[in-house]
């Protein structure tokens, strides 16, 4: 690369060294002051790291929230279920048939005719105690069969596989007690 320049130089020497010297183009020397690289790299890396870590944290917290949400949703639906069950048990306990059975056990009967006490102290109607004749049969009579047709009973005690209504109410009561205990111990 340098040899053609030498030739050119010798060929045009007649134009004078000065002119050549004048005409020759030179690259302006690069004279920028070199900015220190380290702070820039540190800045960029810091930004990158902060970004990545931030994103990671953000994601983690979102995921954490999702776990919490799942847990709370589960808890909420468990509580809704519990509430529904308790309400059903309460409704079962309010069954007029059950209440009548309880009242009957306590020896209560529904009066045949009411008497009213007015606010001024007078009594309307004739108050009289209810008698066993007023008693209402709340369960159907057991079927009666002539003695000859009655099969000989061989009693074997086993767990009932299907609870009847009264039994169900008892269970409801028991369950209500149990859940009350659980609530209490919480």
């Amino acid at each position: 690369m340098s040899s053609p320049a030498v030739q050119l130089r010798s060929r045009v020497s007649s134009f004078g060294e000065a002119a050549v010297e004048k005409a020759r183009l030179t690259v302006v020397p690069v004279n920028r002051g070199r900015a220190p690289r380290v702070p820039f790299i540190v800045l960029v890396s810091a930004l990158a790291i902060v970004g990545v870590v931030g994103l990671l944290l953000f994601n983690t917290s979102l995921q954490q929230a999702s776990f919490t949400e799942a847990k709370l949703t589960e808890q909420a639906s468990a509580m809704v279920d519990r509430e529904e069950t308790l309400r059903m048990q309460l409704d079962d306990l309010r069954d007029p048939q059950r209440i009548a059975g309880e009242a009957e056990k306590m020896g209560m009967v529904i009066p045949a005719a009411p008497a009213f006490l007015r606010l001024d102290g007078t009594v309307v109607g004739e108050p009289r105690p209810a008698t066993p004749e007023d008693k209402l049969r709340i369960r159907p009579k057991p079927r009666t069969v002539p003695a000859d047709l009655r099969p000989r009973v061989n009693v074997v005690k086993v767990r009932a596989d299907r609870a009847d209504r009264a039994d169900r109410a008892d269970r409801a009561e028991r369950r209500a007690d149990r859940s009350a205990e659980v609530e209490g111990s919480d």
Partner: protein
Amino acid sequence: MSSSSRPSDVPRPGRGRRGSPTFRLRVGLLLIAVVLSFFGARLLQLQGLDPNSYAEMATAKDVRDVVLPAQRGDILDRNGVALAGSVSGRMILADPLRTTADAPAIATLLADELDVDYFETLEQLRRPESRYEYIARRVPASDARDVLDRIKKAGFKGIWTENEPIRDYPAGDVAANLIGFMGTDEPLAGFERTFDAHLSGKDGRNRYTQGNGYRVPLAENSIVKPTNGHDLTTTLDRDLQWYTQKVLAQTVEDYRAKSGVAVVQDVRTGELLAVADAPTFDANDHLAADPDDLGSRALSDVFEPGSVQKVLTAAALVDAGKVTARTRIKVPAQLRRQDRPINDWFNHGVLKLTMAGVIAKSSNIGTVLAADQIGKRKLSSYLTDFGLGQRTDVGARGEAKGLLPNASQMTSQNKDRIVFGQSLSVNAVQMTAAINTIANGGVRVSPSLVKGSATMEDGTLVGTDHATSSRVVSEQAARETMLMMERVVDPEVGVAQRARVPQYRVAGKTGTAQRVDEDCACYDGSFSLSFGGFAPADDPRFTVYVVIHAPGVDGGGGSVAGPAFAKIMARALAHYSVPPTGSEPNQVPVEW
């Protein structure tokens, strides 16, 4: 640039090792092209050939589509007490392949916690070649949760649950005939079916992406909220309904009757407070019941009303100005009419009865003679106005409208029998509403079973919002009829002293009608005994109608249905704190 100043003879380091740039470029390009063509081929395979199956696979793996079940509306009584309610429940399932090993332990646990039999469960848990066994159905969700938790804690595998809503009828058989019940998936009877559109809501959906059981945040998540069903409020009073059912059941049982009906209606509003059927069934266990008992006989069974009908005849006669309570009628021992003689239920010579006496003693002959003063057309029009021969449209399924011959179909023999309640048929609610017309001063209020408004399956709007009232007879005529009816329960002159409610003035009428056998379409020799009336007579609040079909013992409406009427009426008056009016029963003469 700096190389320009370098001497040319200095060999470049590494030139021999790397080869020429062109060569290197080509090799590199080739490698890149090979790799890219793999990518391209894969892209073509994924996107071009079968894009949907991959998308589906991804969705199936991660996207869950959950149905959010809508809550079915409750059926309530007039005070908001639930007669039918919904509870979320689960069915408990087992995979015997995985439970066989621990079967005894699991069965013990399940039998302890649930209503299941140990041995049956044990057998199910070990059933060979089965992978799906129902251990328990309709378990309340919280109980199922507890069981599953215990099973999980104990480390057993192969037990899981699935959703299964429970329809609970807390009061069992109370109003079961009207409310009906639910089958496994759909409503099968009663209000549950008739008002299904009103009660059932619309299920919602939730579609979300999940990973390892948790929702992926910021991924697909769309929710369509469920629309819950509406509650249906009835006009029934649960406690009174229960009491009415028990009194009725006891009466049907004691008299060995085939069936029975009792209706309690609020005089002023026409609301039905109790509509009892016997035999009835437990709505929680409808499969155990006789299918014939599942509907409401109060509305679907028609029968000939018998002498209770005389009340309507009397009211029509008074309104037409033909008779009063004191009108004198000579009643012969037998009345010879066109085709056959008409008799009374008791043997007598010639009686001199007033119209009140005719009603009090329930004389067929007297009624026919009195009714001779009114034409067929007029009678038919009155009875139509009382609501006979037309459906009450209270919202019950399969209501029978009964049979009331119109004036042109009515022969004079027909007419004679219709005035004392044979040769026409009614259902119990129709008849209650007709008696209630007298109680309500001559204005018929249409009966209702639903509070507010609801649409039936066939689009009919029913409920108290659509109740109508129309005048049938004048207030004076209704009062005059009441005076006659009050004599029915008089201990000296009436036939139904057992229908009296102590301290209250009661107006009523007995009925003893021959029953038609559906198979032979003839009178089969059995009777329908009834009593219909209202109290307090001088300021009526409730109308009660009791019908006992085909009792196994001899008796009349007064002795069989009367006591049941009295009990139900006394309870209704006490329950709604209606004090006695304090006035004395009327003493209109029955003879002259």
